[in-house]
C-alpha cells in the first residue's frame, strides 16, 4: 500500500471547510457571544495577568483569536483552522506509529477525537484555549520524537511536560501519555521505568502547582481555561484526548500482532472508516447543536447593534417563545414605536418579558441592561451591567460590558470613571475607534459636548429625577418616571404595555391619557384600541358612547368576540380565531386565575 501522505491533509481541509460552514452559517451568533464575553487587550499587564497561571498561554492565545470572532467569517475561519490543526497535529504526532497496511484506517480513526471535540465545541462555554492546548501538546510529541538519543529525549520530555503544563495546562498529559507509549516501543531496559516516571511526573505536577497557585487541586488536574465555568467541565475534552492515546496504543499492538499483514483491503477499511467517522461526526454535532441558544444570541446581538427592523422581521418570520427573545422583540417594538400594534404578536407571559428583574447570570442582565438604558434608567442599566460583568464565570472582562459601563458613567456625568473604562477599550482591536471618540468627548471640558450629544444628551435629559428605590412594582416606578418625563415615548410604550400584560385596564386607561392619542389626531394603535374597547365594555356593557376614535373593524370584532365568548365557543376554536387579540389574552389569563 502506498504511503498517501496527502490524504490526511486533504481530510483536514475538508474538515476545515465543514467546520467553517458550521460556524459561519449555523453558529455565527455563538461566535459573537464568545467575543462579547472577553476583552483582549494589547498590553503587557494583560499578558502577564493571563499567562501566569497553568494553561495561561493557551488562554492568552485563545483570547487573542477570539477577538476576531467580532467578524463572523473571520471567527469561522479561526475555528476551522483550529479543528483542522488538531486533526493534522494528532496525525503528525502519531504517524510514525501508524505504519503498515492499515495506515489509512488509523489516520481516519483519529477523526473520532474530532467528533468529541466538535460536540464539546457545540457548547458556547467551551473555550478556544483547549484547541490550542491540543495542538501544542500534539506538536510537542512530534518534536520530541525527533530526538533519537533516548536519554536526551526522556529528559527533554520531562522538561517539556513542565513547560507545557505551565503553558497549556493539563492537556499536556496527552503529550506525556504519548511519549510514555513511545518509550515503551524502544528496545531499552529502562523503558518501563521512564514510562512510569512520566506518568508519575504528570500526576505530581498539579500537586506542585497547587502549592503555587490559589486554585483548587481539581482545577489544576482538569484545567482552568478549557471551559467557561471553572467548576464544571464537559467530559468530551478528555474523551477526545483518551481516543488519541488509545489509537496510538492500539495501532502499535495491532501492527505487532498483524506483523504487516492486511486483514481487509486497506482502501476499503480506510475509506469505510472515513465514511463512518463522517456519519458519527454529523450525528454527534446534530445531537449536541443548540439552535435555540443561537436564536437567543441572535436576538441579543441585534439588540446590541440596534438592528430593530431586523429583530421585527425575524420575529415575524418565526416567533420565538423564550422570554429572553421576547424581551428583545419588545424592545425593538418600542424603539420603532410599534408596541401598541405588535405587542401580542409575541407570547407575553408576564411583566418579566418587558422589564426583567435581575438574575445572577452573565448574559441575560446584559440584554436587560440594554432595555433599561433605552428606557432611560441609566442607574439600573449600569447596575445590571456591573452584575453581568461580575457573573462571568471565568473571571474574564467583557468588552461589551466595559463599553456599556463607559456609556452609563458618561451619561451620569462621571467622566473620570468613564475614562477608566475607555482606557482599557483603547487597548483593544475592535473597540478602540469607538473608545477614542468617547474619550475625546469625556475630555471635552465643555458641558454642552455631553448634554447636546444625541445619545448622552438624551439620556441626561431623560435621567430619573426623583430618588426612589428599584422595586418589583415596575408599574409604580415606570408610572412615576413617565409623569416626570412625558416625552419619553419608549418609556410610555413600556408603561402601557406593562398595564396590558398585567391585565390592569384601569391603569392602562389612566396612563393612556398621558399619551398622544387622546386628542384623536393620530391613529390609536391596534392593541390600545382593543384594550380601550374592552375596558369600556366591561364598565358600560356596550360600546356606545366610547370617547376614543376606534376603527370600525375593531369595534365589530370586539362585539363578535363578546358574542363568541358569551356563547361559549369551544376554547380551541376561540384560540384559533382570536389568538393574537388582546381580548383573548385578557380572558384566557382571567380564566386561568379563576381556575
Amino acid at each position, binding site marked *: 500500500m502506498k504511503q498517501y501522505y496527502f490524504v490526511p491533509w486533504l481530510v483536514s481541509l475538508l474538515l476545515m471547510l465543514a467546520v467553517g460552514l458550521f460556524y459561519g452559517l449555523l453558529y455565527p451568533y455563538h461566535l459573537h457571544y464568545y467575543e462579547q464575553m472577553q476583552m483582549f487587550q494589547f498590553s503587557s499587564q494583560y499578558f502577564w495577568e493571563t499567562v501566569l497561571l497553568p494553561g495561561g498561554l493557551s488562554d492568552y492565545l485563545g483570547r487573542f483569536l477570539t477577538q476576531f470572532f467580532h467578524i463572523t467569517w473571520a471567527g469561522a475561519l479561526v475555528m476551522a483552522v483550529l479543528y483542522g490543526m488538531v486533526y493534522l497535529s494528532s496525525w503528525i504526532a502519531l504517524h510514525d506509529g501508524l505504519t503498515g497496511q492499515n495506515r489509512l484506517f488509523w489516520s481516519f480513526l483519529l477523526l473520532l477525537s474530532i467528533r468529541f471535540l466538535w460536540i464539546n465545541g457545540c457548547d458556547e462555554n467551551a473555550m478556544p484555549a483547549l484547541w490550542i492546548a491540543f495542538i501544542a501538546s500534539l506538536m510537542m510529541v512530534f518534536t520530541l520524537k525527533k530526538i533519537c538519543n533516548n536519554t536526551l529525549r526522556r529528559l527533554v520530555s520531562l522538561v517539556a511536560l513542565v513547560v507545557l503544563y505551565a503553558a497549556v495546562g493539563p492537556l499536556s498529559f496527552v503529550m506525556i501519555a504519548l511519549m510514555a507509549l513511545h518509550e515503551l516501543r524502544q528496545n531499552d531496559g529502562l523503558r518501563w521505568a521512564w514510562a512510569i516516571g512520566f506518568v508519575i511526573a504528570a500526576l505530581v505536577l498539579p500537586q506542585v502547582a497547587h502549592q503555587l497557585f490559589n486554585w483548587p487541586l481539581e482545577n489544576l488536574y482538569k484545567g482552568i481555561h478549557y471551559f467557561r465555568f*471553572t467548576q464544571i467541565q464537559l467530559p468530551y475534552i478528555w474523551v477526545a484526548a483518551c481516543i488519541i492515546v488509545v489509537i496510538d496504543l492500539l495501532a502499535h499492538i495491532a501492527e505487532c500482532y498483524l506483523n504487516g499483514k492486511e486483514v481487509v483491503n486497506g482502501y476499503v477499511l480506510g475509506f469505510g472508516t472515513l465514511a463512518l467517522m463522517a456519519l458519527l461526526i454529523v450525528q454527534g454535532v446534530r445531537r449536541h447543536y443548540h439552535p435555540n441558544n443561537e436564536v437567543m444570541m441572535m436576538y441579543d446581538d441585534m439588540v446590541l447593534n440596534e438592528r430593530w427592523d431586523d429583530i421585527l422581521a425575524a420575529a415575524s418570520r418565526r416567533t420565538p417563545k423564550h422570554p429572553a427573545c421576547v424581551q428583545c422583540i419588545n424592545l425593538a417594538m418600542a424603539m420603532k414605536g410599534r408596541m401598541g400594534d405588535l405587542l401580542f404578536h409575541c407570547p407575553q407571559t408576564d411583566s418579566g418579558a418587558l422589564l426583567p428583574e435581575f438574575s445572577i447570570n452573565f448574559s441575560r442582565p446584559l440584554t436587560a441592561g440594554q432595555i433599561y438604558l433605552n428606557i432611560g*434608567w441609566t*442607574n439600573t442599566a449600569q447596575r445590571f451591567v456591573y452584575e453581568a460583568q461580575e457573573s*462571568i464565570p471565568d473571571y474574564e472582562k467583557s468588552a461589551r460590558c466595559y463599553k456599556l459601563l463607559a456609556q452609563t458613567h458618561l451619561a451620569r456625568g462621571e467622566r*473620570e470613571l468613564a475614562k477608566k473604562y475607555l482606557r482599557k477599550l483603547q487597548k483593544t482591536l475592535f473597540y478602540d475607534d469607538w473608545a477614542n471618540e468617547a474619550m475625546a468627548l469625556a475630555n471635552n471640558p465643555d458641558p454642552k459636548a455631553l448634554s447636546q450629544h444625541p445619545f448622552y444628551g438624551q439620556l441626561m435629559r431623560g435621567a430619573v429625577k426623583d*430618588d426612589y428605590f428599584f*422595586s418589583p412594582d415596575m408599574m409604580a*416606578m415606570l408610572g412615576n418616571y413617565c409623569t416626570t418625563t412625558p416625552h419619553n415615548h419608549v418609556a410610555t410604550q413600556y408603561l402601557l404595555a406593562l398595564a396590558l400584560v398585567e391585565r390592569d385596564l384601569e391603569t392602562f386607561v389612566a396612563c393612556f391619557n398621558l399619551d398622544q392619542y387622546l386628542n384623536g389626531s393620530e391613529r390609536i394603535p391596534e392593541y390600545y384600541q382593543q384594550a380601550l374597547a374592552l375596558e369600556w365594555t366591561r364598565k358600560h356593557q356596550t360600546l356606545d358612547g366610547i370617547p376614543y376614535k376606534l376603527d370600525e373593524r375593531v369595534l365589530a370584532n370586539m362585539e363578535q368576540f363578546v358574542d363568541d365568548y358569551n356563547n361559549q365557543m369551544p376554547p380551541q376554536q376561540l384560540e384559533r380565531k382570536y389568538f393574537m387579540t388582546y381580548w383573548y389574552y385578557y380572558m384566557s389569563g382571567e380564566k386561568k386565575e379563576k381556575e
Partner: protein
Amino acid sequence: MKTIHYLYYYSVAALLLSGCGFEQVSNPTMVYDMPVIYPDYRGVTIPVNIAPLNFTMQSDSVLLIDAVFTGTTSGELHAQGGESTNIDPTKWRKLLAANQGGSLFVQVAAKFPDGWRSYTPFGIEVSFDSIDYGITYRLIEPGYEAYTKMGIYETSLSDSHERALIENTQFRGCVNCHSYKQGDPRYLSLHIRGDHGATLISHPGEGGTMKAFNTKTEETLGFCVYPYWHPSGRYIAYSTNNTRQGFHVGGKKIIEVMDLASDMQVYDIDRNKLLVCEALKGDSAFETFPAFSADGKTLFFSVARPKNYPTEMKEMYYSLCSIAFDAETGTYGTQIDTLVNGDALCKSAVYARPSYDGRFLCYTVADYGYFHIWHPESDLYLLDLKTGESRPMTEANSPDAESVHSWSSNSRWLVFGSRRDDGLYTRPYFCHIAEDGKVGKAFMLPQRNPRQFYEGRFMSYNIPEFVTAPVPLDNKLAERQIVSDERVPMGVERNR
C-alpha cells in the same frame, strides 16, 4: 502623538539603563505654582518607613518628570522618569531616616513637547512616628449581588509589595470581614459567605490552630458579621445583621445597604460561647459595628431605631454608643451611654474605631444609614475621648466618601478607604494623627508607577487594616477547612 511619547519613554529608559544618568533640566520656564501631581503628595505627612512616593504629572502631555527631594536636615535624592518618577528605594530610605522629624522639599520639573517647566517646590513632612509593617484588605470589583474573583491581600508599606492571603478562586465564595487584634496578625477572624460559609478564627493561644465556625445559632439572629478583637485576645465582638440592599433608580447614589434587624454579641474564645446581652438584643434597636476600647472595658457600637424601608430610609440615623464590658467575667454593664446622638444631629455616626492608646475615637458621619462607603457625603470624625470633643477630620476628608478606617498599632496613623480618586473605586489613604490630635494631610498608598497601577486596578480596597507583621495565614489549610463541611458550632450564654 502617543507613538512619539512611547519612543521618547523608551529612549529615556535606554539612556538610563546605559548608565548615562539623568537628562539635564535645561532652560526651564518657571511656573509659579505647585505641580499638579498624581497621587497628590503635596504637603503630606509620611512615616519614616514608607515606600518611595513615586508620582506622575496630571497632564498627559508630559514627556519626562524630574524631581529633586532635598531634606531639611541633610541629603538629596534625584529621580527621573517618563510616565512616573522612579525613586531609588535605598536612597529614599536613607533620605527619610536622615530627615525624621523634619521635611523634604520637592522641586519638580516636567518636560513638555515645547520644553521644560519648573514648578514651585512643595514640602513633605517626615514624622518621627513609624508606621506598621503593612495593611491587609479585601480587593473587590463593583458588584451588588454577584461577585467575581476577590480575595484578602496584604501590602508591605515599606516597598508596596502585594501578596494574596486567600482568594475565592480556591473555594468559590465570598471572603469579607477580616479583623486582627490591634494589628497583631496572629489573631485573625475571617468571614466566608456562600456555599462554604464559615467564620475562620485563628489565635496563638491554647489550641490556637485555625478553626472554621458556624456562628449561626438558634438563639441568635444569624451569622456573626462585623468583628472586633478584645485587646486580651480572648473575646471577639460581632454584630449579626439581617442585611438587604436597595438600589436607587435615580440620583447620584447607586445602592443602599440596610438592616432589617441587627444585634451585637461577644464571642468568648476560651469557652466557645457567644455572650448575648439582653439589653442589646431585640427588635427595638439595630446595633452594629462593635469595637472594644483600648483597655477592653468598654464596647462601642452604633445603634438606630428601626424605620420603615424604603420610605423612611433617609431618617435612619445611627448614634454612637457604648456599654461597659468586664473581661474577667465576660459580662456587660447595665448602662448604655450615647457619645454621638445621631437623631439629634439628623446624621448617622458609625464605625467607631478607638485608638489603641485610648485617646481618640475615629468614626464616620453621613446623612443616613450605616454603609457609608456608598455615601459621597461620608466624612471621618475624630472624638477626643479625654475631652469628649468631636470634630471632622478636614485634613483627611474629601468631597467623596471616606470610611472603613483602622489605627496603626502605635495609634499615630490611620488608614481609611476613600473614593476621592474617581467616585467609585475605594483606595487606601493614610493620615498622621499627632498626640495632640493634629491631623496631617492624607496620602495614597504609594506604588512604583501609581497612575499605571491605579488606572489598571478595577477593584476597591475594602476594609484596609494595619498589620504589624506578615499575616501567617496558611491558605491551603484555610482552603481545606472552608471546603470541608466541618464547622464548630458556637454555644450561647445570655447575659442580663
